[in-house]
């Protein structure tokens, strides 16, 4: 389950090229000509999109050339971008963040962050349940005081807190 660096280089270049293509397409909706009094709104974005595609293509060619050259020199596929274990570590760190965002969108940021901190401390860092719970509550409380009380920046509350009369 190893991903080589050159594979990743090419994958990333394809992704940026796709973004470039989207930018080019979006720009054509605004008109891309150079009018009598300067460029139309889509002029710069269109060429920006083109340059993104061009640069991505350059990266692909460069990577392929290096891979061909590397094979001759080392007989190997070059260094690894990620191996299975590292990938697992990163995903194990990132997925809970996605979960926090999803829960926050549904139940509000305070519940989202509380659950996330509890999970991170209890499961990921291996603390005991009580300290993890207390820390999670403390984080929520500190954020609540800073944002709602001190700076009066209302964060997303969600239906649960509103039901408890916390706006």
């Amino acid at each position, binding site marked *: 389950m190893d991903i080589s660096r050159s594979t990743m280089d090419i994958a990333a270049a394809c992704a940026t090229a796709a973004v470039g293509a989207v930018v080019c397409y979006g720009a054509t909706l605004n008109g891309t000509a150079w009018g009598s009094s*300067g460029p139309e709104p889509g002029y710069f974005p269109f060429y920006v999109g083109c340059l993104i595609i061009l640069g991505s293509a350059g990266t692909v060619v460069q990577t392929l050339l290096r891979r061909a050259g590397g094979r001759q020199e080392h007989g190997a596929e070059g260094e690894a971008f990620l191996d299975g274990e590292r990938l697992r570590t*990163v995903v194990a760190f990132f997925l809970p963040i996605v979960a926090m965002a999803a829960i926050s969108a549904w139940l509000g*940021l305070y519940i989202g962050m509380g659950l996330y901190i509890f999970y991170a401390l209890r499961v990921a860092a291996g603390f005991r349940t009580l300290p993890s719970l207390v820390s999670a509550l403390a984080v929520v409380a500190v954020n609540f005081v800073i944002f709602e009380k001190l700076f009066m920046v209302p964060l997303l509350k969600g239906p649960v807190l509103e039901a408890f009369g916390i706006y």
Partner: protein
Amino acid sequence: MGNFGQLMDGFAVALTTHHLMIMVMGVLLGLVVGVLPGLGAPNGVSLLLPLTFTMDPISAIILLTSMYWGALFGGSTTSILFNIPGEPSSVATTFDGYPLAKQGQAARALTLAFTSAGIGALTGVLVITLLSSWVANFALRFGAAEYFAVYFMAFASFIGMSGGSPFKTLVSMMLGFAAATVGIDTISGESRLTFELDELIGGISFLIAVIGLFGLGELLLTMEEGLKFEGVKARLDIRVIARAVAEVPRYWATLIRSALIGCWMGITPGGPTAASFMSYALGRRFSRRGRFFGKGEPEGIVAPETADHSAGSCALLPMLALGIPGSATAAVMMGGLMIWGLSPGPMLFSTRPDFVWGLIASMYMGNVIAVVLVLATVPLFAFILRAPFTVVGPLITVVCVIGAYTVANHMFDVWLALGFGIVGYVFKKLDYPLAPFVLAMVLGDKAEDAFRQAMLTSDGSPAIFFSNGLVATMMGLGLLLLSLPVLSLLLKGGRAAPKNDAAATPEGRSA
């Protein structure tokens, strides 16, 4: 000498116990606001604004500007400790500040940043004091073409600076331009690249991109590298701070260069963010230690910090003299001025000299207080780094997520930041430079607007960019900066080329 006498009167106004207390309070609040991304200086100032309705204008503006200084310093703190720029203008500080902190020298990095920032700010105030009457007239000479020339210079100083693959640099910079384009176009009033999504009509916030690319991206990288967070070794030693303060004067050349760039960009419409980038780029090119930039080089911290703060101070002058705010924070303060019954503009200096000079005097005091207070917080921040990453990591994550939300109170922004986080992680691993992306995103739409306004003014003739001495000089300087890498390559001949090539790949990896 007229200015000097007025400044003394100003000090008499600013140096009351009441005002000193306000300064301390403002700086402390600013620090808190600056440290939290998403709660930037503009938020802080607008939140304090209601409090000032019942104050007299001088106390009110002292409170707001002190908060601004505090926020500027706070923004550098998170840049250095966590690679999360609390303020747009402190992005350039991450380039060397964070590597230095990672090497276990967080206290030194913070102290260097704060001290040089203080020097920069004081230089800026000095320039305001000496040149206030001249600056207002000078700023009036800036039309659309001149605006564009300023941005052009900032871009030109950056091109050819980053090592590594030119294709990747190109892609990174162009992606930045594309991101800056999203939203409604100033010139035509049409929406661009929004694809009829409500969420995109307001554009992509720069802060969202930075929180994702730098903050979350770096967290993922640290996680993957097996939680090696070298800050753990950070020693709490007061002597480190003293030694770092004493170290700063050694970088006098960088200090002077950066302060000049900062003042220039503050007076002209470039602003602090462009100033810090330009100063970093030129430092890298002209400093003897330039090739160590990006790996935790002290001069790489001094250069952007000095320029950032001198520009931040100088930018207040166009605000007072012309009523054109140089930054979002200045815009909020200007709103304040109007509510307090003062009108920023050319006449403010003659109708309310007590206000203007009281403010300028408070800028001296406020910055000195800010440096002292912020240096006192260094041990505290260094202490945070000693906590294990399994604890600090999730906390930083929460700060990033809340930060992304508070930028505009949109959940969509949180998702966007997560997306940018993955992009930042992949790009960093593949040696895509992020600095060109950030620079293009900050200045891209401004440069485009200025360019198209200039073309409208001249009926489509590019001659407007060389139509007077001022704009021609700036464009000329920009072109010179642009051609520097090519020139130096030509001068060095074939000798340098293979060496560069060999150095590019392994160096970039470690950065």
